[in-house]
């Protein structure tokens, strides 16, 4: 995640379509990403940390599975790669489009 921009640049330079699990990569120049919203996960994380600090047993806290998945598309990168995504069904399924 720290080197996401370098990874994205590398992919573009070598004309490779890139796909990631987190939308942050896509914002940094990756072509596509599909996965749970990391920010939302961190909100849950903060809530759990608070509950443990308040004295709840970590064993009693259930595992929460993500329920919000997002597809991010970076059109700029697509253009650089010379792709026309308008003809695919990707765009209408995208939750986040970066132009």
């Amino acid at each position, binding site marked *: 995640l720290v080197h996401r921009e370098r990874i994205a640049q590398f992919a573009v330079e070598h004309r490779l379509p890139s796909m990631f699990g987190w939308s942050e990569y896509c914002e940094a120049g990756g072509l596509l990403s599909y996965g749970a919203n990391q920010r939302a996960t961190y909100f849950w994380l903060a809530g759990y940390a608070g509950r443990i600090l308040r004295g709840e047993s970590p064993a009693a806290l*259930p*595992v929460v*599975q993500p*329920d919000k998945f997002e597809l991010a598309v970076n059109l700029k990168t697509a253009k650089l790669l010379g792709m026309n995504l308008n003809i695919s069904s990707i765009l*209408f*399924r995208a*939750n986040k489009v970066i132009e």
Partner: protein
Amino acid sequence: MSKRLPPGRSLFIKYFLTLFFAVVVPLILGAVGEAWLGYRDQWLRLNEVLQAEARSAAGKMQDFTDGIRDQLGWVVQFPWSQDEDQRHRIDALRLLQQVPAIVSTTLVDETGTERLFVSRLRVNRIGRGMDMSTDPAIIGARANKVSYGPVRYQHDSEPYMRIAVAGTLTEAGVAVADVNLKLIWDVIAAIKIGHTGYIIVVDETGRLIAHPDMSLVLRGSASAGDFSRLNQMLNATNGSAVVTTADGGQRVVAVSVSVGDPGWNVIAVQPIAEAFEPIRAALWRSLILIAIGTLIMLALAYWLAHRMSGPIRQLEDGAKRIGSGQFDHRIAISSGDELEQLAMRFNEMAGELATSSQKSERINRLKRFLAPQVAELVEHSDELLDGQRREVVVIFGDLRGFTSFSKRAEPEAIMAVLREYYEVVGAVVTRHEATLIQFAGDGLMVLVNAPVECENPAQRAVLFALDLQVAVQRLASSWSARGYAMGFGVGIAMGPATVGTVGYEGRLDYTAVGNVVNLASRLCAAADDAQILADPVVAERANDSVVLVSLGERSFKGYDQALEVFAVAQSEGTTEIFGSLLPSPKVERDLAEAGV
């Protein structure tokens, strides 16, 4: 003997308790009644509020499932034909885009074969061709257009439910959506009842579907017991509120409303502490009011009881002092009410008592010259002793030969003789209820018919004189045995005289003034030893019971005309004493001396 409170204290306590309870008991009853009514109203209101909240939440649940149902309806509009797979795929993808709660969708054609599977988490499949015609969701949807599957918990944690919708055309097949019910949390968490009240959703078995604390849902069957018990309890009450213990041991009020289609129960929960906050505040208010009222009443009752019992104690003290003879004691109460009037009456009574005691003192003085019976009579009519003119009988008596005896005899002997004489005379006077006016040496003066009137005074006077003569003659014979020669003569006269008290402060005498007194004195002087002389008035009046013998007319000093004089004849028992009724030479001589 049991210990007794002093009378004043017990009255104080009685007044105090009565006044105290008279106010405090209604106060407490009022407060209790108000609290009870308040509690009932609050309970009804709470019931309504919770029901409304639960119903609104149930409506939202319904909207949630209806929304999914309607969206599913979109993907089963077109019939399946060979080239329609792509179109259905886009519809299914759009559906997932549109409805975040749907995790995956399976589209089944009219034969019950799976044509398409689209998922957020797994790889999409097209045309796998699996036979799903025996799937209960498909059967249910074909029968009722819509079917809601049971809630299942993935990994005993996340609640999921399958919703299947059949198209209007049989050829359109059935869409089955896997719905993540965790998303209901967004709806539930937004609902707040008061500050701490909340909504939970359970399925028909009582397992938690949604709770503001999501982790309770995700904990799966670990926390299922509590909610299943709550659900059963609420189902039994048929929609009215119950008080129970919720998760975490908190006392809560809960109401349940069922959501029609999926068959869930929405439960509105409010902690009892918050639910009854208003009534608790009201209770505290009334408690404080009761406490303040009680304190005020304590002070007031103490003051009033003191005010009431204080004067009564003063009265008691006053009555005791007056009773012990302090007639000049006055009770000073200025309370301005009946007690003050009572004190005034007491003071008046003390005054009356003082007067009455003065009166009885005077009566004691009167008894010296009145018979005791007469004294009692006089006691009740003061005016008897006032000066007035009336018909009286005057009796004079004196000892014959006393002067010469007193010259010879020793003083002790004289006093002894006089004492005996007075004793005898006194006894006779008392017996006849006559009025002894005076003793003067050997002489005595007695009144009949004054100050107390009596019937036939003349006759009484004559009988008295006879009795007196007999008694004194008996005494005289004892004296003659001792060598003292003395006799006793009596004179009686009747006529009008002025009677009344004369004298000065400290020495008062009752006496009669008038001609008749002089006449009686003259007759007495004229009488021989053992003789009783009476005037014509007495003779006439006493004629029927006593024999009177006329001694002829006599003239007396101070009287212009001569007066017929009568001697009282002796009765049977007195023969030897009254030896002679005829005037003796001595009488003649005495009369000559006394007369003109």
